[in-house]
């Protein structure tokens, strides 16, 4: 089985570039040039040096001993929360800002849900002195206020989006409209493995550093490069794509993605696309979507702004369809319990998104002699208000 994108931008039957003609010139240029640019030695040197000295990589692989004890198994946390700006998102934005410069672009746009991708984009724009506009659903502007303030301090313009549910999907629509209107000077830094080809592959490659490091670190710590399983939360699916990437062709490694069940996959208030969705086309990609019979996208719900999206990257659609990866879903309630558990057992306050992966530890069988790596995609600073309200401190 092949898990890489083909020359037309498809993973099996999913993906492609279902763009309106207005985006053709930009997407065509990216498709033709992205590999040549990012595989270039000078590019790699600069990218790797920024990952090391600016992002702070490699991120530690931490053996969570008390969590392991609790589950009677061996649990490792891939500490993407320790990256500069507090999540895995910076891996991708560092790559894309270098690419944008090679393309001669001077203005950067991005969509954001939790604000982590917006923050990571605003950060690299400050680093490189490029203009930055971040689209963010008006609801998310409210629930992730601290990230909005950081983006503004970094010099980005944050544009609240009032359409739809005022969340990530709507922010993405608006960013696409901006790009249609500003095709010349602007590069759109998409924040996950979604959107038209080549974004899913490009973002997965930038995030693949996560699993590349895991292998080396596992070898050192366990004597084997391969764990029994890798678990990650899935919104669009970029931290999961990065965490799975170098294990895709090792079928003995179980891959588990965890979606946001919201109030439960049997309710309407969910964002678990693979659990309730069907194939369709949104944001220029053919993938699983939450939609009604008429093909209208239904509004997702999750307590976590970063997973509150009615689609999923086409790589994950393919891994799901072929059975290479398994996808579970965790409810808001289960996630908040997982937040508290990690906080009290390990002294780490995780992001709401990342806690979905932790919550799924409750749902699977873990053996004493197995190593499980959980991708801890981000830290909980941005979610403190939610935590304080819920736990009542």
């Amino acid at each position, binding site marked *: 089985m092949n898990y890489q994108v083909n020359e037309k931008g498809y993973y099996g039957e999913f993906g492609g570039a279902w763009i309106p*003609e207005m985006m053709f010139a930009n997407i065509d240029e990216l498709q033709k040039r992205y590999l040549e640019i990012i595989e270039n030695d000078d590019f790699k040197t600069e990218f790797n040096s920024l990952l090391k000295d600016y992002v702070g990589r490699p991120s530690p692989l931490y053996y969570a001993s008390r969590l392991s004890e609790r589950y009677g198994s061996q649990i490792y946390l891939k500490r993407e929360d320790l990256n500069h700006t507090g999540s895995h998102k910076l891996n991708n934005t560092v790559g894309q800002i270098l690419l944008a410069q090679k393309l001669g672009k001077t203005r950067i746009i991005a969509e954001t849900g939790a604000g982590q991708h917006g923050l990571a984009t605003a950060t690299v724009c400050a680093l490189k002195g490029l203009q930055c506009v971040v689209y963010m659903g008006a609801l998310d502007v409210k629930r992730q206020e601290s990230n909005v303030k950081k983006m503004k301090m970094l010099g980005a313009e944050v544009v609240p989006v009032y359409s739809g549910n005022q969340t990530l999907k709507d922010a993405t629509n608006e960013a696409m409209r901006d790009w*249609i209107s500003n*095709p010349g000077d602007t590069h759109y830094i998409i924040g996950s493995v979604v959107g038209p080809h080549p974004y899913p592959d490009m973002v997965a490659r930038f995030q693949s550093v996560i699993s590349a490091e895991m292998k080396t670190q596992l070898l050192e710590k366990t004597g084997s490069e391969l764990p029994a399983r890798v678990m990650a939360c899935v919104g669009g699916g970029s931290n999961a794509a990065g965490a799975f990437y170098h294990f895709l062709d090792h079928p003995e490694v179980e891959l588990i993605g965890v979606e946001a069940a919201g109030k439960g996959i049997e309710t309407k208030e969910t964002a678990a696309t693979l659990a309730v969705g069907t194939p369709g086309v949104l944001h*220029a990609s053919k993938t699983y979507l939450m939609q009604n019979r008429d*093909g209208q*996208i239904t509004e997702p719900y999750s307590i976590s702004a970063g997973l509150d999206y009615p689609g999923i990257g086409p790589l994950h659609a393919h891994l799901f369809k072929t059975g290479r990866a398994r996808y579970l879903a965790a409810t808001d309630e289960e996630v908040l319990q997982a937040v508290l558990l990690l906080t009290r057992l390990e002294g780490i306050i995780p992001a709401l998104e990342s806690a979905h992966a932790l919550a799924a530890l409750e749902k699977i069988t873990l053996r004493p002699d197995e190593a499980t790596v959980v991708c801890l995609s981000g830290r909980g600073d941005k979610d403190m208000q939610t935590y304080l309200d819920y736990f009542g401190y």
Partner: protein
Amino acid sequence: MNIENRINQLFRKKDRNIFSVYFTAGYPRLHDTAAIIELLEQNGVDLVEIGIPFSDPTADGPVIQRSNDAALKNGMSLELLFEQLAKVREKVRIPLALMGYFNPVYQFGVERFCRRCRETGIDGVILPDLPLEEYQEHFQPFFAENNLHNILLITPQTPDDRIRKIDAASSGFLYMVSSSSTTGTGKKVEDFHREYFERVHDLQLKNPRLIGFGISDRATFENACRYANGAIIGSAFVKSLDSSDPLEQVIARFAAEITGRR
């Protein structure tokens, strides 16, 4: 299926100042569809584009976004739209095209959609997010079998060789997007890409061209007509429907404003 497609008939009879109007089905009220089409024809419109509303219209500006949302809230769907259009050909003779995003059509079934179009008397389809390559690889026969034109877009960024490729793959007419923008964002007449219009003109394409996006009044309409066979007005018409006056009045006033006829 021996009848000539009405879009071809139109361009055979008239090659200048073609007045085309877009509206969103289900807006302002759910059951206005047939009445709007009839009134547009009565007021001299040559070609009507009936918008299939979608939850996420990424190529549209605020006015059409709002009409899409409202139409969906009103209960519009593709199934219902075809029901509403079932009798439209008893009265209306001008060509009709359906315009929308790919996903609702995909869920309906592309082949079934094309068949229903023919049964209803639809002459063309405009799906901006169905790219040329996907169309050719998967769907072209369904359109051909049903005597249906798939209308493709070109933009100021489309390179000449691709314009030629799109022209070769097109029938009916080419939808020429006026400037780099979403619908209705009203870049001014002076900002129009004269260079682009002239470049496309000089390519000697086989298909006629209509210019759309940002055509909002008589001045922009006439300007567009200088460079193409006609123009398409969307947002400005949809906005005019916000009026509380009866549809008859609103549409007559709108058409008179654009064409200068009374």
